[in-house]
């Protein structure tokens, strides 16, 4: 009887055990394939948000640029190396006339466009494609200009339309830009993430089908990857572009796993569900792990606290100065950036060649701030709004916390602060409409030229396109920027920019807070450079190191053991 009982219980146990073995078998029955497994040939990137569009010409948002610019497209010229020298890309060479007004590009003849489910190219890249890509931006009559809204924020902020006289196609592989006046940043602008080349043939086909909007939703480019599928808020799948004009990308598939929550990105990284994660939190934890790596670049960016200079009381310089004096910047950097940032004295980082060492740091002095408020006639204090951006960016990882700290600082000098936050697109729209009093925002440089900080952020023309949300327009400042652009003499340019920085620090349309570092976490097996010094990320050079032979062998042993166990049943 007792023996029987034992047999029954073990019988039941064996039943369950065999179920377990089956599951284990399912999990381990790999390793015998000769070629690399799918996960070895692919990269999953946990990104922080959905791209708004697949055309970088239309946006300035970092998330969209990260997802599209270097994956799907190429530019005429590009930056190479540590010094960021302009080098050939789609254009194999170029020539600038002495007066700097005519720039001729000689294109490569072997550049193939993507072949996808929705488009099959019949020809390689020609001057027509270049002409189309730029005419779309500058020619308001162009049939594609108003598709997707007709806003080209980057190009409008650098006044591309006013700069280019005309674009001429000389022959199929030669194209010439004629400028109205010499501009030392023109080439730099052509190398940015925004100045990508679209396919004119694809645009024509879409026009025939009356589906023009598809050009920005189902993109065709020349880049190392092509779009396979996209589910908003869920994922983007890219395949390798096999006919890429340079060496093929090393991975076959690139997936953007869209995970807006910081903690879920961290969890996925730790659980190996993504290979690379954008903007990781818990740096300490990542550094602790042997199998993970934390990358960082001191990015060309600026996080700032801006004032709407068209609205009272911030139309008064004294009030702006008083508020700036009352903010403890060091505390902001320690708390919000956790010390992972450099304090900003001006809008350009110290690493830029244009930075002037004589620029003085804004000090923290609440007593003087109070005095200034009295002079401004606001001794009894007032109530103001701070608009804190709702998303995390490397230039400002947590705007709401920053707003709370500023709230506490300003309370000391009798100013009551309300913190306001909207959903991101609403936030940007309302800012562009000037509904705010003050705001926390930032700026990434698109290329290393210092003009990329000065013009888009604070020039008069940028007030209209909505990138200058302080609505500060200063004739002297604009004149300085113009002079700096017209010369190629670095020393002269530097002196103009130094003067411009002085104007900013006197007028204080915004208070520069910090230049942050951009972080990215990745699995140790993932090799190759992803983060760029400026602008968007690129997965072109990335690959996965195959694991050493030994663990695979032991895995095989393990599975054969399991087979034996099952055979015994």
């Amino acid at each position, binding site marked *: *009887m007792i023996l*029987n*009982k034992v*047999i*029954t*219980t073990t019988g*039941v146990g064996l*039943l*369950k055990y065999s*179920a377990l073995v089956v*599951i284990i078998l*399912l*999990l381990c*029955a*790999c390793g015998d394939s000769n070629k690399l*497994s*799918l*996960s070895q040939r*692919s990269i*999953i990137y946990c990104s922080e948000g959905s791209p708004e569009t697949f055309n970088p010409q239309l946006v300035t948002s970092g998330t969209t640029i990260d997802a599209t610019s270097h994956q799907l497209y190429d530019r005429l010229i590009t930056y190479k190396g540590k010094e960021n020298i302009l080098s050939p890309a789609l254009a194999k060479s170029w020539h600038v006339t002495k007066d700097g007004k005519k720039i001729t590009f000689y294109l490569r003849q072997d550049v193939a466009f993507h072949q996808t489910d929705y488009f099959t190219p019949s020809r390689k890249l020609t001057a027509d494609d270049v002409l189309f890509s730029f005419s779309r931006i500058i020619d308001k009559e162009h049939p594609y200009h108003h598709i997707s809204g007709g806003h080209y924020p980057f190009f409008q902020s650098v006044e591309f339309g006013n700069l280019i006289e005309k674009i001429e196609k000389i022959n199929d592989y030669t194209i010439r830009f004629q400028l109205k006046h010499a501009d030392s940043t023109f080439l730099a602008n052509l190398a940015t993430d925004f100045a990508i080349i679209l396919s004119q043939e694809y645009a024509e086909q879409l026009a025939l089908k009356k589906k023009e909007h598809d050009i920005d939703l189902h993109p065709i480019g020349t880049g190392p990857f092509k779009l*396979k*599928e996209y589910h908003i808020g869920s*994922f983007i*799948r890219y395949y390798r572009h096999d006919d890429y004009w340079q060496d093929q990308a090393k991975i076959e*598939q690139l*997936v953007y*796993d869209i995970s807006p929550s910081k903690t*879920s990105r961290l*969890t*996925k990284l*730790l*659980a*190996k*569900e993504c290979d690379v994660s954008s903007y990781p939190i818990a740096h300490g934890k990542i550094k602790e792990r042997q199998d993970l790596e934390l990358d960082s670049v001191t990015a060309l960016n600026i996080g700032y606290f801006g004032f709407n200079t068209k609205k009272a009381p911030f139309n008064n310089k004294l009030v702006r100065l008083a508020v700036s004096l009352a903010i403890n910047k060091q505390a902001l950097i320690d708390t919000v950036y956790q010390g992972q940032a450099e304090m900003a004295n001006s809008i350009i980082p110290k690493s830029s060649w244009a930075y002037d060492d004589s620029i003085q740091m804004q000090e923290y002095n609440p007593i003087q701030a109070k005095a200034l408020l009295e002079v401004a006639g606001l001794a009894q204090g007032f109530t103001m709004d701070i608009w804190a951006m709702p998303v995390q960016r490397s230039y400002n990882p947590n705007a709401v916390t920053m707003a709370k700290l500023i709230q506490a600082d300003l309370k000391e000098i009798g100013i009551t602060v309300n913190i306001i936050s909207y959903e991101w697109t609403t936030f940007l729209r309302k800012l562009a409409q000037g509904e705010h009093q003050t705001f926390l925002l930032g700026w990434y440089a698109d290329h290393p030229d210092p003009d990329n900080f000065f013009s888009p952020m604070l020039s008069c023309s940028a007030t209209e396109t909505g990138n200058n949300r302080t609505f500060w327009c200063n004739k002297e400042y604009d004149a300085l920027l113009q002079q700096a652009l017209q010369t190629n003499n670095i020393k002269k340019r530097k002196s103009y920019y130094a003067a411009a920085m002085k104007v900013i620090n006197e007028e204080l349309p915004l208070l520069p807070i910090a230049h942050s570092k951009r972080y990215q976490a990745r699995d140790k097996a993932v090799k190759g450079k992803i983060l760029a010094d400026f602008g968007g990320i690129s997965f072109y050079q990335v690959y996965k190191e195959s694991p050493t032979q030994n663990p695979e062998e032991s895995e095989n042993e393990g599975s054969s053991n399991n087979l034996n166990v099952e055979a015994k049943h």
Partner: protein
Amino acid sequence: MLIFTLRRLNLFIFTMLVLTLLSFSLSFLFPGDPVINLSGQLNSTEQQLAVINQSYRMQDNIIWQYFAYIQHIIQGDFGLSMSSQSPVIDEIMILLPATIELSLVALLIAMFTGIPLGFIAAIKHNKTSDNIILSVAMFGYSIPVFWLGLLAILFFSIGLGWLPSAGRISLLFEIEMVTGIQFFDILMSNSPDKWQAFQDATAHIILPACVVALAPATIFVRLARASMIEVLETSYIRAVKAKGLSFQQIIFRHALRNALIKIIRHVGLQFANLVTIAMVTEVIFSWPGIGRWLIESIYQRDYTAIQSGLLVLSCFIFIVHILTDFIYAALNPLARGNKHGS
């Protein structure tokens, strides 16, 4: 049997009427225009609005409106989701199979662990193993599912790195959706990485399914134990014991089947409980099922999605109940006399 079937059908129709009535009244209870809540058409022009009003018979009295609503539902038109502006029924058809898959796997795990454990406890009635099993079951029953889910992720995904923490399958695999039940879809697809995909999907379902299974499994332990004890005390068991049958014969031939019959009914009832647990678990494990979608709809004030989602989900659970009733009746001739549904 005919009367039994008719009774169940009758019950089904009336319950559905009450459910639709509730869901219909929700559109008046939610803020906003009832016809917009019903149809989900947010940015419609004057003419479109007139067409919608016409089709929902908003100009007639409320009874006609209700019938118009029923008509739409029978045609499979649940309106548009307010947040995505795509038909709710399409979204549900994609999401519901994911929830069914998770719940079924969890139910199987719960049955195959809970019921044997319960039987062992009953056979060892009042001995140490009985006490251990009972106390473990009690402990398992008291653990809140959201806490368990997070703990499982922390331990198995982050700590040990054995199992993935989110989603149904790694994004690397492209599986075309045919049935919606992912395991079938993988087997039917002609992807070269089919087996890798299958392993990956298996690895993805283990954690959420086990978390969902815990509470029902503990209930099954107690049910199985109680019913086995009851059976073992009946006189026919005593009779076969007296006839000198071996212990194994007593349990497997006589006790097991009689004890199982009593549990089968509860399996169906537990399914409702299981789906509720699955909804919370879906949120924790980012499982793309209907529970997570419903909770997101609540955040986004997507009234159309909420009311149709509730209707479909409760209808589904009700069908499962009726099905178990039928299975029970098929297995247990005594139950066929039960004319009234329960």
